[in-house]
């Protein structure tokens, strides 16, 4: 990876490479919340946008140095993530998705209409490149190394997180919330934690984007962007960190490599979601947890059915589980 810039033929390919690197934390963050936490959030674009706007505004309006703006971008996004995370916990999984979509739409509408702060549809042009002390990251090579370092930090962070007690608790919650609660896992705490870290990295990524494009506009941060994060995470595999990196690399670069397909990319990505879910819900490299539990559920149902048939055959007793609602 470090020697890669030597082999890059031109600036165009270089920029695609950086775009992939910027999207890696996004895919990882989505994977943390959806793949490990089991929460289908479709509002990540809002946190991505909050990060981008925070970073750009701090540098442009207040003249803050880049490291400060970068950290603030993540923290502000994280703060909003926690704020949204709490009410989301009170509602079921379907409503959580709605609330995150709603939050994304609210962010988009505000970014579009709050002219004094965001300049609305005109956006914020002229965001300077990142700068640490005397070093200005104004060439693609320099930016590549800086962003690669950040993306690696993100990967390590996620790796440590998902292999710690937090990750195991999240997986336990994803697999069976009731059982996890019985084991003494504080469900609300871990879910908000997943939300907080996921939105933190979306915010960092937003800052990276703002200083890479030198521009922030509201049209980048729509529901389609959130869907794209989801697609990166599921292609690589929910619950697999290397998978997310691969998903980001494939989905960002593929439309550029196969240019004629570019206008069909949303169509293809949509079809990909349907086909993947039916055929290989664990994605390319995912742990087979999702698939396993799908099969497990089927087995459980069959077992239950068998027991019912047995009970009906051997005794007149009414099966208490017969009236239970099944999914």
């Amino acid at each position, binding site marked *: 990876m470090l020697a890669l810039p030597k082999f890059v033929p031109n600036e165009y390919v270089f920029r695609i490479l950086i775009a992939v690197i910027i999207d890696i934390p996004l895919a990882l963050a989505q994977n943390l919340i959806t793949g490990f936490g089991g929460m289908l959030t479709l509002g990540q674009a809002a946190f991505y946008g909050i990060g981008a706007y925070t970073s750009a505004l701090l540098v442009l309006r207040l003249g803050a140095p880049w490291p400060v703006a970068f950290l603030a971008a993540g923290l502000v996004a994280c703060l909003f993530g926690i704020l949204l995370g709490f009410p989301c916990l009170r509602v079921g999984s379907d409503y959580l998705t709605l609330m995150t979509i709603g939050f994304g739409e609210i962010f988009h509408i505000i970014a579009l209409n709050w002219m004094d702060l965001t300049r609305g549809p005109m956006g914020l042009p002229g965001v300077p490149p990142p700068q640490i002390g005397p070093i200005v990251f104004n060439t693609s090579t320099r930016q590549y190394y800086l962003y690669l370092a950040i993306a690696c930090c993100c990967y390590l962070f996620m790796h440590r997180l998902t292999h710690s007690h937090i990750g195991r608790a999240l997986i336990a919650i994803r697999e069976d919330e009731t059982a996890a609660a019985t084991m003494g896992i504080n469900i609300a705490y871990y879910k908000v934690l997943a939300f907080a870290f996921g939105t933190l990295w979306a915010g960092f990524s937003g800052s990276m984007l703002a200083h890479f494009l030198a521009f922030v506009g509201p049209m980048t941060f729509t529901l389609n962007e959130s869907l794209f994060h989801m697609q990166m995470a*599921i292609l690589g595999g929910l619950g697999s960190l290397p998978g997310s990196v691969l998903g980001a690399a494939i989905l960002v670069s593929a439309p550029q490599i196969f240019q004629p397909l570019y206008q069909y990319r949303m*169509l293809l990505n949509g079809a990909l979601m349907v086909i993947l879910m039916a055929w290989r819900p664990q994605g390319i490299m995912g742990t087979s947890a999702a698939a396993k539990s799908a099969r497990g559920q*089927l087995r459980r149902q069959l077992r239950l059915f068998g027991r019912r048939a047995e009970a009906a055959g051997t005794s007149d007793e009414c099966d208490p589980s017969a009236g239970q609602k099944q999914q």
Partner: protein
Amino acid sequence: MDLNYVVKQLLNGLAAGSIYALVAVGYNMVYGILELINFAHGDIYMFGTFIALSLLLGHVPVILALLLACVAGGLIGMLVERVAYRPVRDAPRVVPMISAVGAALVLRNVAQLIWGTETMPFPEMFPTRMVQVGEIRFNTLQVIILVLALSLTGLFALIVRKTKLGKATRCVAQDIPAARLMGIEVNKIIQFVYFAGGFFGVAGGVLFSMYYAVWIGMGFLGTMKAWIACIIGGIGSLQGAFVGGLLLGITEAFISGFISSAYRDAICYAIVMVILVVKPTGIFGRQIAEKV
């Protein structure tokens, strides 16, 4: 405050709200049967509305064109269920939801390839004019929409409440294995529900377009409005979805009339978030015990 202005906004709200109600009632039933959020619902009705538009522009008689479009919407609904939902019905919750989002994306992008991204006016099917009653002026179109939406919703409720098919549907919604044991062909009923959802959805979509216009984004908008209406009224309740739709329309009209039309949708989402946190069951909803 000007009373005429209030009444005018109320009328606007009722007309829009009755459309939301019609779409929400179908959406509610589709949700209730598998408890799966049908992300594609709005895109199905968008697709059907575009079909209606094409047929009308091709000089097909109005009634026939609308009927064909509604049937097409129903068939698309069945297709989506068969392709995107049935294979993953027993998988964990997240899987069918992602699949549903994917189906919505496919529909939207196919429509975009066929009809483009432009906003198009819907051809006028009835002569409309402004009417003055006392101090208040309103468009006859609003009244026509209100009446049509309400009668279609009534028809839908009648099917669900009074026919054998409706009874079987309610049975499946309550308990799939039990329904199967009672000899109900579950898959057929689910297909019927998706057909009905698409059929009445397109009817709502056509009314919506008569009132506003036709564009690709109306699908997602419709999904969200129907969903919001269901949440306000209470998921799983027919009259809840109906009242929720009307309330949503009226709320929107008053927000854009008195506060800000740019922030209308943002405020609506915020209201829904508050409702979800304070009273997740909505107005008519009942607490659904989660399966352990």
